[in-house]
């Protein structure tokens, strides 16, 4: 342990370099900082042992494998897709005041764009990754984020409202779909 390291220790007693060890393992430190850290590790037993343990965690994560689902799962799925039962009908049944309060109109607007992109309808209307497309995507993502902020605020006020929770879930998922679709559109151009 170097004298410098001791003098740098935080109030908790941990070596301040410990917080950089994951970045070092993942190769995300700039070369200068990385060289400093390597020098430090050679003199710091705490960092030397911690980095060995972190490497074991990363290696173990890569051995995590699939898990066989319960046998009951497929019959239930088959039953649902054969019956055409809606997966999440409750939020579609929200009253208009609830919907407005939770920013549902924004979600519908963005969802429509996501659907158009996903089904390729915009390919006839938009010439490529032009600014209007990018602007529309950004505007719709901003709408989702604004809607999500509203929903989260509504949930803060009414934490037991099942409608709001389901709407939050659906809006997060719809936003993720839009991001994914936009990424695919970009790759296709």
């Amino acid at each position, binding site marked *: 342990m170097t004298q410098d390291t001791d003098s740098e220790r935080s109030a908790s007693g941990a070596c301040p370099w410990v917080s950089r060890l994951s970045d070092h393992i993942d190769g995300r430190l700039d070369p200068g900082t990385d060289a400093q850290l390597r020098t430090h590790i050679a003199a710091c037993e705490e960092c030397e042992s911690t980095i*060995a343990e972190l490497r074991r965690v*990363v290696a173990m*994560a*890569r*051995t*995590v494998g699939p898990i066989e689902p319960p046998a009951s799962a497929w019959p*239930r799925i088959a039953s649902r897709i054969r019956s055409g039962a809606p997966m999440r009908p409750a939020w579609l049944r929200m009253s208009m005041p609830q919907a407005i309060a939770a920013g549902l109109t924004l979600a519908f607007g963005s969802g429509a764009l996501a659907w158009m992109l996903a089904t390729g309808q915009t390919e006839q209307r938009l010439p490529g990754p032009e600014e209007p497309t990018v602007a529309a995507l950004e505007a719709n993502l901003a709408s989702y984020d604004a809607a999500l902020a509203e929903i989260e605020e509504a949930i803060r006020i009414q934490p037991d409202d099942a409608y709001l929770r389901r709407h939050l879930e659906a809006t997060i998922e719809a936003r993720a779909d839009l991001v994914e679709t936009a990424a695919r559109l970009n790759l296709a151009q």
Partner: protein
Amino acid sequence: MARSPVQQRDDGQKEVVLIELERPARVPDDKTQDLDDAARAAGGDVAAFERLYRRHSPRIYGLCCRMLGEPDAEDALQDVFVRAWRKLALFRGDAAFGTWLYRVAINHLLGRRAARASRPELNATNAVERLPASGPRDRVDLRVDFERAIRRLPEGARAVFILHDVEGYTHEEIGEMLRVKPGTSKSQLHRARMTLRQYLR
């Protein structure tokens, strides 16, 4: 025969080594069969969809278990496959079916996770529970402890750890998925790793 990931070093200490073949993200798809079955399923062929389910459900279920815990995992698995069935018309084969399905699952699970985070009664994992970490353990014990430890991580750190270290997403991708800055994703990952290391001692 599978090689154990736990190796004995010269100094007598155990260490876990990387076994590339066991990484789930690298399990190859039977792409031709998948494309054929996806096309049939999009036309309403439930038997073809069941074949897709048999090939891909263990990976998706593993993800569900780790992200949500077993009580909710089967329900989530059902939702993912029902959702995939309804979206099959949008699958155009420009990515492997397994990759497409995985994104469907991730999007669904992130939505569930966000909704669950708003329910305090289901979000009792802020404190990290300690598991027995000392004493000799065989490979199976080590793996079981590690799986249990992942599921006991706080919500944010667990999601980032699974997406980055298990599934191989970048911090930029994770930041977009979780609506956090990449720097937050990095610090959550470090927090998760620092917590998990105690289970491998």
